């Protein structure tokens, strides 16, 4: 361990460097390496993921007592905003642009051991290391920095779409539920004091919050499975997605964010966090509609206007708007399948077919990804009404990634 004991002016300069150094590094890389637009988008995603996760993990580290920051300037949630941004830039696009062909773990290991391991505990008054600070460093790298560099790598290569969508969902969640509320509380007052609330209030809020989150996360999953892209317009879907929760509401992610802020505001008794849902509306009116006109309308000149005419932006339809008839193939020999058929037989938008195969299959001409087994039954129940759709999408949200990860593990074993 090195004890630097730098003079104050040097520490002030170091704090400047922690933000401006990474910014200059990224600018130099973009200019010097003539990075493609795709690479720059990849860097942006890594930065956004980094901002959300560095903020969340450092907040956790401060709460655990692993370290805390000195100087009461630009503090948000006891974290210096400039250091968080600098960290997100350096350990996202900065390192990725500098070492594009090196494995992310190999980039991070020397930094963890060489830099943090030697000087982290001698950076006072910038940062005061507490007990177990090295555990905290490992935690931050494992959950914030490494995934950010992987996200950039996969985005530029256009591979690992499910993982990219998952990381972008985590990023969005971090922004919506941690970064923005903290900024709002910094500006308008309020605290994250949840533990003093009655247990039933926390449980109820947690349940309602997870149902609101299902709307957004499930929409993200549908864009990944059926659209072949991510929810971020810079890495858009290849196809127009009108199924899943998109058959009920055209802005499920913004709706989910707005509901999330209302519920979080109620839990924290903070009207300003609730008011952030108005900002979601403002964002849709100003930015999303513009994106719709200049991107979706041009890419899908026939499908988009028809969809837009039939599906509302904010208040979900009770029954889905369907463009084509889906087919659910069931087995007559299975009692559960017969029960499912009896529940769905009255639906116009779904045809029931019978076969000897005991595995249910769901096919929809508007989809490119077909569902099998329990997910097929769930996908069929999405056609009933919004309440059923929410439950069915929750199941699909859990079952599809589980199946995917299991298949990946089995493939590795063989």
């Amino acid at each position: 361990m090195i004890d630097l004991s730098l003079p104050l002016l040097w520490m002030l300069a170091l704090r400047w460097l922690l933000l401006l150094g990474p910014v200059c590094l990224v600018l130099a890389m973009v200019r010097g390496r003539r990075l493609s637009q795709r690479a720059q988008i990849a860097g942006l995603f890594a930065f956004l993921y980094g901002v959300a996760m560095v903020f969340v993990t450092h907040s956790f580290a401060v709460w655990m007592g692993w370290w805390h920051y000195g100087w009461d300037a630009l503090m948000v949630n006891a974290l210096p905003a400039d250091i968080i941004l600098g960290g997100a830039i350096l350990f996202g696009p900065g390192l990725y642009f500098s070492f594009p062909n090196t494995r992310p773990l190999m980039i991070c290991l020397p930094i963890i051991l060489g830099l943090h391991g030697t000087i982290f505990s001698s950076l006072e008054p910038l940062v005061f290391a507490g007990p177990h600070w090295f555990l905290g460093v490992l935690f931050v790298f494992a959950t914030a920095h490494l995934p950010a560099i992987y996200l950039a790598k996969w985005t530029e290569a256009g591979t690992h779409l499910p993982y990219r969508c998952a990381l972008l969902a985590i990023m969005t969640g971090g922004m919506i539920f941690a970064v923005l509320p903290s900024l709002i509380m910094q500006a308008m007052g309020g605290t994250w004091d949840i533990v003093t609330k009655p247990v039933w209030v926390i449980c109820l809020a947690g349940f309602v919050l997870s149902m609101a989150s299902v709307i957004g996360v499930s929409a993200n999953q549908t864009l990944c499975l059926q659209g072949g892209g991510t929810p971020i317009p810079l890495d858009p879907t290849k196809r127009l997605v009108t199924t899943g929760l998109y058959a009920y509401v055209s802005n499920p992610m913004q709706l989910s964010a707005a509901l999330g802020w209302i519920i979080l505001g109620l839990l924290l008794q903070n009207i300003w966090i609730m008011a952030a849902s108005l900002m979601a509306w403002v964002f849709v009116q100003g930015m999303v509609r513009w994106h719709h006109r200049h991107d979706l309308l041009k890419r899908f000149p026939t499908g988009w206007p028809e969809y837009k005419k039939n599906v509302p932006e904010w208040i979900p339809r009770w029954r889905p708007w369907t463009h084509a008839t889906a087919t659910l193939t069931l087995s007559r020999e299975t009692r559960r399948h017969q029960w499912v058929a009896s529940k769905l037989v009255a639906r116009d938008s779904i045809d029931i077919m019978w076969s000897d195969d005991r595995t249910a299959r769901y096919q929809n001409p508007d989809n490119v990804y077909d569902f099998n087994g329990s997910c097929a039954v769930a996908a069929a129940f999405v056609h009933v009404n919004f309440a059923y759709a929410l439950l069915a999408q929750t199941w699909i949200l859990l079952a599809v990634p589980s199946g995917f990860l299991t298949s990946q593990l089995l493939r590795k074993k063989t």
Partner: protein
Amino acid sequence: MHRTKLSVVFGMVALAAILSAWRGYLAVSDLIDGDQTAFLTFPLSVILPVMVFSFLATRRRMASEEGALMQFGAMVQILLIIALPSFAIYLALGFPVVFLCVELFETRLPSAIKIAVKSRLIA
């Protein structure tokens, strides 16, 4: 292709330079007096916004008039962030309002006003 008029951009760049110099002077004089806060906040509250402002100012070809107006609106908002440090966090949180204003301008305002404003701002 559409772009914000060069004279408008030059005016805003000059304003950004004056504001940055003024903030820099305040930061250094506070530091000499023993208060480090303005000096510590300078990179995030001045240098970074100036960088974003410069990036926007050098984007000269927008696909639509709406895009050029959004560019102009974002530049004005950044100038306000630099000029009003006490309100910077509120202005940053309210950034989507810029895009709402442009959307309302494009979709709600009478054509005569729109044409008059655009002719003064966009080339």
